[in-house]
C-alpha cells in the first residue's frame, strides 16, 4: 500500500541540528582539530625543550620514510595476514552460529564474545605465556619437529600475527554473523532446488549475500591490527616492531614530535586510502 514517508511538521526543521550539535561539536574539537594539529606539527621543526615552529618542513616525510618505511610495510603485511586468518577462522564460526546452532544461537554468540571481555592486555600476556619457549605448546611442537622460526614461537612474526588475529576476532565474527543471519535459508534451498550443489550454492548465493559482513569485518580487523603495537611488544622480537611502536616511542620517550606526527599522519592517510579503495572495490557504501 501507499506509505508516504517523512512528514515535515512545522517547527521541527531545526530539531536535527539541535540534536546533532553537541556531539558534532565534540567530534570537531576532539577529533578534527587534533588531526589538524597533528598535520601541522609534522611540518614543524624545533625540539621539546625549546618548542616547535612551523617551517613547512616537508622533507620530514622522506626522512621518516627512509628511517621507518619498513615498519609501514611490516605493519600492513602483518595486518593483512592477520585479517585473512581472522576471516578464515571467523567465517565457519559465524556460519555455524547463524545456520547450524538452532536454539543455542544466542548462547554461542555470548560465548564467542565473552573471551574478549578479559582485558586486551591480560589476554595478550596470556599468549605470551602460552607461546613461551619453555611452555607446553612450544615443546609439543618441537617434539613433533614442526617447522618454527629459530625453533621457537615467542618473539617471532608468527606470534605477533597470531596475537593480532586473536585479539581482533570478534570484530570479524560479529559483522559476519549479522549478515549471514539475515539470509533467508529458503534462498539457499531454492539454489539447491535449482541444481546447485552445496559448494556452488555457497559460492553463488550464501557468500555474495554475506559480502557486506565480509567487508565490514575485514575493515574492523585490518584497521586496529595495522595500528596496534601491544602484540608486537609482548609477542614479537625487536625485528617485529610495527609503526605503533615507533609512534609511541617517538612521542612518549624521545619526544621527537615532528617525526612522530609525520608517522601518524602517514598511517592515517595510508589507512584512509586503502579503506576507500577497498570500499569502492567491494561496492558497499553502506557500512556505517
Amino acid at each position: 500500500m501507499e506509505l508516504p514517508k517523512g512528514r515535515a511538521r512545522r517547527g521541527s526543521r531545526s530539531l536535527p541540528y539541535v540534536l546533532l550539535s553537541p556531539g558534532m561539536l565534540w567530534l570537531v574539537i576532539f577529533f578534527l582539530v587534533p588531526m589538524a594539529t597533528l598535520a601541522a606539527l609534522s611540518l614543524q621543526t624545533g625540539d621539546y625543550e625549546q618548542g616547535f615552529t612551523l617551517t613547512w618542513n616537508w622533507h620530514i616525510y622522506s626522512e621518516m620514510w627512509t628511517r621507518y618505511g619498513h615498519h609501514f610495510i611490516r605493519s600492513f603485511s602483518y595486518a593483512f595476514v592477520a585479517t585473512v586468518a581472522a576471516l578464515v577462522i571467523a567465517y565457519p564460526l559465524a556460519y555455524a552460529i547463524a545456520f547450524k546452532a538452532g536454539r543455542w544461537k544466542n548462547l554461542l554468540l555470548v560465548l564467542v564474545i565473552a573471551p574478549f571481555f578479559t582485558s586486551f592486555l591480560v589476554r595478550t600476556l596470556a599468549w605470551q605465556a602460552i607461546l613461551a619457549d619453555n611452555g607446553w605448546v612450544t615443546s609439543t611442537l618441537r617434539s613433533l619437529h614442526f617447522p618454527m622460526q629459530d625453533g621457537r614461537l615467542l618473539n617471532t612474526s608468527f606470534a605477533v600475527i597470531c596475537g593480532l588475529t586473536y585479539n581482533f576476532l570478534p570484530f570479524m565474527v560479529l559483522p559476519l554473523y549479522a549478515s549471514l543471519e539475515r539470509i533467508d535459508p529458503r534462498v539457499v534451498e531454492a539454489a539447491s532446488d535449482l541444481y546447485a550443489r552445496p559448494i556452488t550454492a555457497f559460492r553463488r548465493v550464501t557468500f555474495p549475500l554475506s559480502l557486506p559482513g565480509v567487508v565490514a569485518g575485514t575493515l574492523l580487523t585490518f584497521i586496529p591490527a595495522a595500528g596496534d603495537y601491544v602484540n608486537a611488544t609482548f609477542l614479537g622480537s625487536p625485528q617485529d616492531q610495527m609503526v605503533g611502536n615507533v609512534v609511541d616511542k617517538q612521542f612518549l620517550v624521545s619526544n621527537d614530535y615532528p617525526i612522530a606526527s609525520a608517522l601518524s599522519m602517514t598511517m592515517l592517510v595510508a589507512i584512509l586510502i586503502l579503506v576507500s579503495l577497498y570500499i569502492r572495490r567491494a561496492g558497499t557504501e553502506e557500512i556505517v
Partner: protein
Amino acid sequence: MTPTAGAPAGDLRLVELTKDFGSAVAVDCLSLTIPAGSFFALLGPSGCGKTTTLRMVAGLEEPTSGRIYLGDDDVTDRKAYKRPVNTVFQNYALFPHLNVFDNIAFGLRRRGVKDVKAQVDRMLDVVELQGFGVRRPSQLSGGQQQRIALARALINTPQVLLLDEPLGALDLKLRRQMQLELKRIQTDVGLTFVHVTHDQEEAMTMADTIAVMNNGKIEQLGSPVDLYENPSTVFVANFLGQSNLVAAQIVGTQGADLLLDVQGRKLTMPAARNCATGDSVYVGVRPEKVRLVPAGASVDLPGHNVLDGVVIDASYTGVTTQYVVRMAWGQDLMVIAANVGNEVRLTAGANAHLVWDASDTFGLEATGDIAEGIETIDEAGS
C-alpha cells in the same frame, strides 16, 4: 481543546483537499461529506490516494491545501493527538512493549483518565477477548491483534474511526468473519467509520456508502447497489465487479430508449442510463446479466439485445460457469451463468448468442481507455 468523548458527532467534511509529494499529486482537490454515524468506504487501487486522505483526516499528514471539518470544527491545523479521531492501522501498530491491557488503555491514560479498568474490560468484551489483558501483542494471532487494534481505537469513542486496510493482513476466511464483526460493532456503537480498502467485496459488504477513488480523485460516490448497478465511469464499471464494455454510436431514439450501433449490430439502451454527452459511447452490461444461448435457438425477444460470437473458453467455478465469447470484430466478452441445473453447457468452439434485457444496458463517456480500472495484478497480498 481536548476531544471530549461522546461529543455530538458532526459530519466529516473534506473541502478541496489536496496533497502533493513533490511533483506527484496524491490527493487532487477532493471534496467530500461523510455523514455522522455512517460506515463509509474509500475504495481504490493502490496509489489512488485513499490512504493519504485517511492520514490527513487522522492528522498524520499535512494537506498541501484544503480544509478538514468535523461538524463545525476546522481541525485542519490540529495535531493528531488533539483530534477526536482514531485509526486502526494497516498492520495494527500495536505497541510491542506493552501488554494488551496497556495498549487498549493508552489513549484514555493520555487524556488523563485514571480509572481505566472497567472501560478496558468492557472493550475486551466487545471484541470478545476477555482475559487477554496480560498478554503481549506478539502472543496473539493476526485476528486477535486486529481486534485489539480495534478496541484500542474504539475505547476512545472517537467522532470518526479510521480503518486503514484493517483486514489486509488476515487470511480470506478470517477476513469474511471480521467484516461481519466490524459491521456489527459499527451498528452497535453508532460511530462514523471511514474504511480504506482496495478490496471491492470488502467495501461492498460493510459500507453504507462507497467512494471509488482513482488518481487522487473521487470517480463516483454512492451505495454499493447504486455503484454496481449504475457505474458512471469506465473506471468504476471495470474496478467494481466486471463489465463488458464495447464502443458504440448513438444513431437515434425510440421513445425512452436510445438506438445504438455496435460494429453494424443494433442495440437499445434506456436513455436514462446513458452517462455520455456525445454520440460516441461505451456501452456496457454486467456479465451475469447476459444469457448465453446456443446458435440457432430463437432469440427474437422484444426489449432484448443480442450479439453473436464464438465461445473460446468455458471455466466451471462451482456456483457459476464463466464463458469468454469472441465477437466477430475480435473483442472478447464475458458471460457468467449461474449453475442452476437446467442450463445448456456450451464448450469452446460453439457458436452462441449473447442475450440480455435492454434495460440492463448502460452507457459511459467514451473518453480514455476502455480497460481502465481492470486490475491486471492481483493485489490481494499487498
